[in-house]
């Protein structure tokens, strides 16, 4: 079994900030925009180092998205940044028309996504963003799992031609993906090979899936853990290859059950190779105040929930 070590918990948004600072130095076309959340998006260093390429828009996200589209027309690579709820639902039509339909090279970087936003509560806990973004043609949707992967994903996004939605989170979480792990948009990463059940996880739930793998091993079940960092375009081949081998699947995401990674996996299986699928996701609820860990437990997005889902999937397979 592969060993993954937490080299020191960090927030994924800091991975974004680190990447932006690097991009600021290496790519003069990169421009950052922020809607009054510079500190939260870890862009203070970028703003200080490259003031002419940092655009503060104030609390006006619709305008920010349009400005980003305009900058892209002029050949810039704009990163439009704010919290995930403000970066999607609030400005959906702006993204749809000025960015997605117009196919502008805008990168929407959305922080504080998911339930782990914590105490601010449901108005801020965005659980529908992956669904909204993946439904837009031309939009690439990425949910990296840790600091290192977020940094790599940000840099990859800057090199990708076309609109990108990149979602990451607020709290410190285990940092375990090797720094030199190649990040290719759309290419899933096999973290742990297994034979009994395929576990497809994204974002903060990838580490928990790896923990679940250990628990399952003790129960005599080898789970194949695959990191689906790119929900769109989905690595369909990786999913089908894995499920062909294992015969059943689990999806795990910090997002609504309706319309997220799990639905994409379900669609893939239904179209190509119907196999039992169990979904670890938020069950048609809004969030609430709490600590990230409390919320992960309350909303059943934790390691034991992934274990139980895997056991259910295997049981259904064996019926």
């Amino acid at each position, binding site marked *: 079994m592969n060993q993954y070590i937490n080299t020191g918990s960090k927030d994924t948004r800091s991975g974004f900030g680190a990447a932006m600072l690097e991009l600021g130095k290496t790519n003069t076309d990169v*421009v950052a925009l922020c809607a009054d959340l510079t500190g939260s998006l870890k862009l203070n260093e970028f703003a200080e180092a490259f003031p*002419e*390429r940092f*655009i503060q*828009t*104030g609390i*006006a996200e*619709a*305008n*920010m*998205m*349009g*400005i*980003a*589209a*305009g*900058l*892209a*027309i*002029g*050949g*810039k690579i*704009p990163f439009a940044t704010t919290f995930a709820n403000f970066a999607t639902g609030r400005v959906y*039509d*702006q993204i*749809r*028309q*000025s960015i997605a*339909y*117009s*196919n*502008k090279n805008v990168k929407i970087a959305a922080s504080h996504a998911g339930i782990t936003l914590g105490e601010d509560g449901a108005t801020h806990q965005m659980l529908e963003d992956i669904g909204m973004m993946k439904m837009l043609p031309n939009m690439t949707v990425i949910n990296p799992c840790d600091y290192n992967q977020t940094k790599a994903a940000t840099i990859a996004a800057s090199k990708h031609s076309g609109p990108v939605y990149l979602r990451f989170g607020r709290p410190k979480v285990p940092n375990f993906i090797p720094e030199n792990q190649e990040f290719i948009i759309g290419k899933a990463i096999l973290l742990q090979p297994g034979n009994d059940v395929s576990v497809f996880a994204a974002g903060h739930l990838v580490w928990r899936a790896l923990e679940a793998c250990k628990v399952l091993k003790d129960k005599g079940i080898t789970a194949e853990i695959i990191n689906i960092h790119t929900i769109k375009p989905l690595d369909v081949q990786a999913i089908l290859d894995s499920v062909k081998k294992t015969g059943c699947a689990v999806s795990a995401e910090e997002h609504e059950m309706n319309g997220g990674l799990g639905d994409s996996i379900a669609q893939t299986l239904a179209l190509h190779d119907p196999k039992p699928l169990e979904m670890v996701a938020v069950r048609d609820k809004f969030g609430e105040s709490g600590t990230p860990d409390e919320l992960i437990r309350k909303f059943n997005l934790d390691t034991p929930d992934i274990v139980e889902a895997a056991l259910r999937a295997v049981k259904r397979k064996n019926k």
Partner: protein
Amino acid sequence: MNSEKEISNLASQIRRDVLRMIHAVQSGHPGAPLGCAEFFAALYLRILKHDPAGFKMDGMGEDVFFLSNGHLSAGWYSVLARSDYFDIAELGSFRKLNSRLQGHPATADGLPGVRVASGSLGQGLSVAIGYSLSKKLNKDPYHVYVLMGDGEIQEGQVWEAAIFATAKKVDNLIAVIDYNKKQIDGPLHEVMPLGNLKNKWESFGWQVLETDGNNVKELLAAMEQAKALTGKGKPVMVLMHTIMGKGVDFMEDRHQWHGSPPNDAQLQSALSQLEETLGDY
């Protein structure tokens, strides 16, 4: 330099094109493009420093125009074709299946002249501002123009953009409002009165000019003045008074012609009032 007569001639032809395009598919928005015919003609014949032959998305080294109220598409397509951005014959494909001339402007088919999709209102000013910022970053001294509708500025995003343009001194931008005082549900002052637009934009920190958009001489003077006001640290707004449906007696000043196509008889009557100056497509 193109004369006022040439601009008027082009405007008349644009009006004919618009009505014929919309009539052919029995859908589209005739009223506002008719009102903006002089503006489109003046813009592309005289005001813009632009290069139709080598359309570049990034518009480096030329003036760039954005149409925010995308439902004026028929008028924009007409002036683009008449300005050699694409073949005039293509105007006959307006709103038809597989056409590059989509109902509202789009970039998906690479139609020369169009840099962003528009149609859902309120977004173009933001895009124009972003593009203006890119021109400054690229040290490109040319100007950016954007047309909006007066109904359109009821959208909140427009005011986000208005605040930003002043705060960040976007002074290479000239915004124009098609002030025809009509919207779909009726006259503006009945549906959603906007108050004193000049005062509003001035209080937001813009330099504001007013002009008669259907009088070529006045329009040209105002646009020249607008250009002279750029580079002074404040964005520029031209409130352009127009008559919706201008040039066709039964359409003039009637909000009902916002989005209704003329029938056969109405088209004939309209065309008989509009001089065919440059040859119908």
